[in-house]
């Protein structure tokens, strides 16, 4: 399996690995995927009072492409508003990482993770 250089880079040097406190009201947590599928992503965003995502962290159980997708996403999210985060499409992940067709589902899962994290945050803010 030939991985692109970008995927290998994110895999060797993943950005923003870790966890925030789930209970923190400024943190949104999205957990998507299932062990049976071989892909589980946990994506967390920390949002400032101004509604901008100040920090993001991830943990992923999955192949190199899945790890790279979620790592890339944490970079893409920093400095964005929640609306901008919601607008991130999996295709930009595919393009940036040069994912082959068989790995596109990893980028889709990453997009789902963003939406789940934002939804979680919004439900806390109600």
């Amino acid at each position, binding site marked *: *399996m030939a*991985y692109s250089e970008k995927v290998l880079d994110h*895999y060797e040097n*993943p950005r923003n*690995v870790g*966890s925030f406190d789930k209970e923190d009201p400024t943190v949104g947590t999205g*957990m*998507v*995927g*299932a*062990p*049976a*599928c*071989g*892909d*589980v*992503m*946990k994506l967390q965003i920390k949002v400032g009072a101004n509604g901008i995502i100040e920090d993001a962290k991830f*943990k*992923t*159980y*999955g*192949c*190199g492409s*899945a*790890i790279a997708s979620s790592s890339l996403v944490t970079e893409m999210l920093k400095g964005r508003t929640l609306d901008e985060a919601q607008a991130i499409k999996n295709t930009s992940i595919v393009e940036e990482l040069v994912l082959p067709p*068989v790995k596109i589902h990893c980028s*889709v*899962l990453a997009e*789902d993770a963003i939406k*789940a994290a934002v939804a979680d945050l919004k439900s806390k803010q109600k």
Partner: protein
Amino acid sequence: MTNETQVMPIYMDYSATTPVDPRVAEKMIPFLTESYGNPASRSHPYGWIAEKAVENARNEVAKLVNADPREIIWTSGATESNNLAIKGASNFYSSKGKHIISVATEHKAVIDAVREMERMGYETTFLQPEPDGLIDIKKFKDAIRPDTVLASVMLVNNEIGVIQDINALGKVCREEKIIFHVDAAQATGKVEINLEKLPVDLMSFSAHKTYGPKGVGALYVRRKPRIRIEAQMHGGGHERGIRSGTLATHQIVGMGEAFRIAREEMEMENARIKKLQSRLLSGLIEIEETYVNGDIEKRVPHNLNISFNYVEGESLIMAVKGIAVSSGSACTSASLEPSYVLRALGRSDELAHSSIRFSIGRFTKDSDIDYTIRLLKEKIGRLRELSPLWEMFKDGVDLEKVEWAEH
């Protein structure tokens, strides 16, 4: 060919294929450029020399398994032998019945050949092994029907290395008058095979799993009591009409030499490899949450198939670039599904996904084992830091009870 100098990983994938032993290669080469005659050419020394070499090789193969040389048929490999045995025997004896028994953990070469017979109107039963990978004799007996014509069970499993009790299964087949085929591709040179004693009718052999070249194998076809099979390759009537096609002398010579070395060195080699296997196992089980797949006793020393929980298989393979191993089997490594062999053992999808097959061999060194242990400890640690499942496990969450947001 690579242009830049590539550092090759340490080879720990002997179950996928083995390097040709230098002694074997040396023996083969003259038959490419000097003694290149067709063994079927009866009228000149080129043919006679080739024929003699083929018969010597046939003797060597027969000697390793204590068979008569006349019971050895040359093929292009174990896949062809499996096809020839399964299709050839069930077709020949179809008047007896049209039911075939095999096992869910067989190599694809057997499973697909049996499925092909299904397409041709046969009925099939694929037995599930026990969690340790071994077949329960009672379940085997229960699967037999009056119209069962053939059973096929591999001697050594390619993914998990377990050794089936072929002797006991064969005895059952004799009692029920069922033809018994055994795929021994992974077994030659690793376990003793005595076809004079074993109640087996057909047995498949591969050269490239035993330090011979790829592209050649053999099928044992018992003479006493006589078993007959329908040819699958026609054209020239070679190998007593059972398998037509000009014999590839150099390939056959290679297989003969490989099997001679196997016979002479098996005992000593197995002892050395057993030590390496123990060392590898004791090093790896120091890592938390590891599971050995397949019975730990009834296995060949060359194989260790281990699942590392909470870490995904493909990322694991990527992490251990310094060693050449496989996750599941070579045949299934292209698909996204977890190993069907591990699933048949009852392993969860996660454990089936996160397995590595370490298979060592003749050229594996102590330092290779030590490097592997260090590498796995480091990389598993790193991947677990990345894993949300490991985090949940450490937090005491029961992952069985979680509702996953699957898509």
